[in-house]
């Protein structure tokens, strides 16, 4: 039973703790940090959101009782997102991750209204005192896949099914092309834009289209596994994206550029727990453990694996950059002179194809 005496004691304790540093430290140690995740699509079994959820689970396993996580999936990038973020903020979550670009303005708005809650936004660029952003150098994985593709293709035509011509997608196409041509200067990449992140029927048709026009390896920057399946059905090769998609095409799947968020989530939560978190803009690659190549298909010869391992080692050591100069654009212009690497700023503004892409870029 709660007696008056205990109540007074409790109140006294709280006052002391409050005087110490504004936080009730004992309560903080006992009560788990509540963390909310907002996903743009269902978790499913592969893909963008699936990888984020793997990261969430890894963080939860590592930190155990110190955290209590919750996720809300299929939150569309609109006014709905703002409602969801506000709801998470008012229901006791102290740290909220949003994992889609289109949440940016809503997260910024809600972050302003809840200055005591920490927000972390994947792939955005707007930051605030309590809003940090993080992203991965997806193009590094693409370059490694490109090296494998350049060695494995017989027709020298590589197919790429892409969603929208934004810098992130162009970085992937260009890195893949440069990777392929670093080992096979005859290789060319053909791109088909489906103008949708999510239309498996069209993604599959696009892949079939490329394969019937002699592409013997296809990859995609869209959200489903349709392209890998299409390659499996036709006996061609494919690369997965976001996740290891080998289950969807065991024979076709050469490898995949996968995203790994677990270490970052664990680190961020630890910082929040320790009170050392500061808003920052993180763009991590192979070096930081954000990007990893999925297991390489046994059909890929050992010599090619060694080449890929060399690239990977260079990325890890920071001695190699997929866009190390000279970088030539499709029309022969030097966009980066030899002797320096493309800067992050230049990467973020990429709006052209590099030499080796055979298709025409959609005009703005």
């Amino acid at each position, binding site marked *: 039973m709660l007696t008056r005496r205990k109540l007074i004691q409790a109140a006294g304790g709280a006052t002391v703790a409050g005087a110490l540093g504004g936080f009730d430290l004992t309560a903080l140690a006992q009560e788990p940090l509540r963390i909310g995740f907002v996903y743009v*699509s*269902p*978790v*499913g*079994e*592969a*893909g963008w959101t*699936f990888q984020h959820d793997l990261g969430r689970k890894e963080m939860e396993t590592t930190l155990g009782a110190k955290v209590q996580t919750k996720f809300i999936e*299929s939150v569309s990038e609109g006014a709905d997102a703002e409602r969801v973020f506000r709801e998470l903020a008012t229901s006791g979550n102290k740290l909220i991750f949003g994992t889609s670009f289109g949440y940016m303005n809503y997260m910024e708005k809600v972050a302003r209204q809840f200055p005591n809650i920490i927000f972390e936004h994947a792939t955005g660029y707007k930051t605030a005192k309590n809003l940090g952003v993080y992203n991965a150098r997806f193009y590094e994985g693409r370059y490694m896949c490109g090296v494998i593709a350049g060695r494995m293709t017989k027709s020298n*035509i590589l*197919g790429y099914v892409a969603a929208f011509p934004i810098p992130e997608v162009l970085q992937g196409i260009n890195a893949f092309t440069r990777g392929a041509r670093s080992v096979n200067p005859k290789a*060319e990449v*053909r*791109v*088909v*834009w*489906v*103008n*949708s992140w*999510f*239309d*498996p*029927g*069209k993604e*599959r*048709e*696009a892949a*079939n*289209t*490329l394969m*019937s*026009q002699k*592409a013997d390896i296809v990859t995609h920057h869209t*959200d*489903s*596994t*349709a392209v890998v*399946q299409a390659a*499996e*059905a036709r006996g061609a090769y494919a690369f997965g994206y976001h996740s290891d998609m080998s289950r*969807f095409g065991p024979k076709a799947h050469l490898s995949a550029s996968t995203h790994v968020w677990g270490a970052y989530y664990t680190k961020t939560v630890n910082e929040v727990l320790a009170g050392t978190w500061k808003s920052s803009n993180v763009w991590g690659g192979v070096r930081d453990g954000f990007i990893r190549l999925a297991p390489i298909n046994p059909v890929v010869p050992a010599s090619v694996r060694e080449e890929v391992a060399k690239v990977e080692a260079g990325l890890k050591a920071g001695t190699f950059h997929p866009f190390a100069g000279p970088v030539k654009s499709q029309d022969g212009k030097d966009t980066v002179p030899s002797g320096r690497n493309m800067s992050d700023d230049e990467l973020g503004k990429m709006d052209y194809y590099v030499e080796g892409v*055979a*298709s*025409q870029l*959609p*005009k703005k």
Partner: protein
Amino acid sequence: MEQSLFTSIVMATILAGTPLVIAALGELVVERSGVLNLGTEGIMSVGAIAAFAVALHSGSAWTGVLAGMAAGIAMAMIFGILTLTLLANQVASGLALTIFGMGLSAFIGKPYESRTLPEIPSLQIPGLSDLPFFGPVLFGQKSLVYLSWLLLAAVVWFLYRSRPGLVLRAVGESPTSAHSTGYHVIRIRYLATLFGGAMAGVGGAFLSVFYTPLWVEGMVAGRGWIALALVVFATWRPLRVLAGAYLFGGVMIMQLFLQGSGAQIDIPSQFLSSLPYWATIIVLVLISRNAAKIRLHSPASLGQPYRPDA
């Protein structure tokens, strides 16, 4: 056998057009009876997930298609009760059915998200499928494609050559006269609506079981709406539905092929992607210019509730 480029384009076109043919033929029959069901997109979504789930568990694609059909009938039944028995507004109910169907399919589909089914090989008709060009196009398709052609023949025969078809058209033109001649307007409209639901369900099943074959939320991706537009595009005539669906599929496939060819063309891909919709709009405008034609072909009582005792 290595197919020529042209053959692959035609094959892909037919494949892309098939779910549209099936769903649009269903909707055509519904609209010919005077009912406007805008819920096709929702029904297709529910049909797709029902078919996928059942096909995955039973291991049989055809059981899956039957499940998609049953789910489509169930969805159409909801629409029928709302609009035919309770006389709710058809446009509003149809839109609500679409929103409901998309939500419901996402809900049922949660455990199946991004799972896949084994590929279903094309049904080669022995002897004939080896003919050049016509072989693969006419005799080397997925089994559901043949079914869509049979369905077309059945709908044409039913509407123009059978007595029940005549009655159905009469109900769509003038429910009052049909009623006074002794036909049960509401019952006929129910049957038409359920048939439309069944076909939209099969259209969805084709997408998730034969075409992709996988389930992801939102995979119908607007094909239900295109099917609805096709019915108007075809001025409520079945053969034109087939032509329209293939035209639509063809434009989509052609633009993918153009992009994939690596040819230097100065057309934005966004424009190419929107070409099928442009084609639909242009044809609609051309048809609508002729008011008499529209009046002649559209079912006169389309979208109007019928109260037998009034």
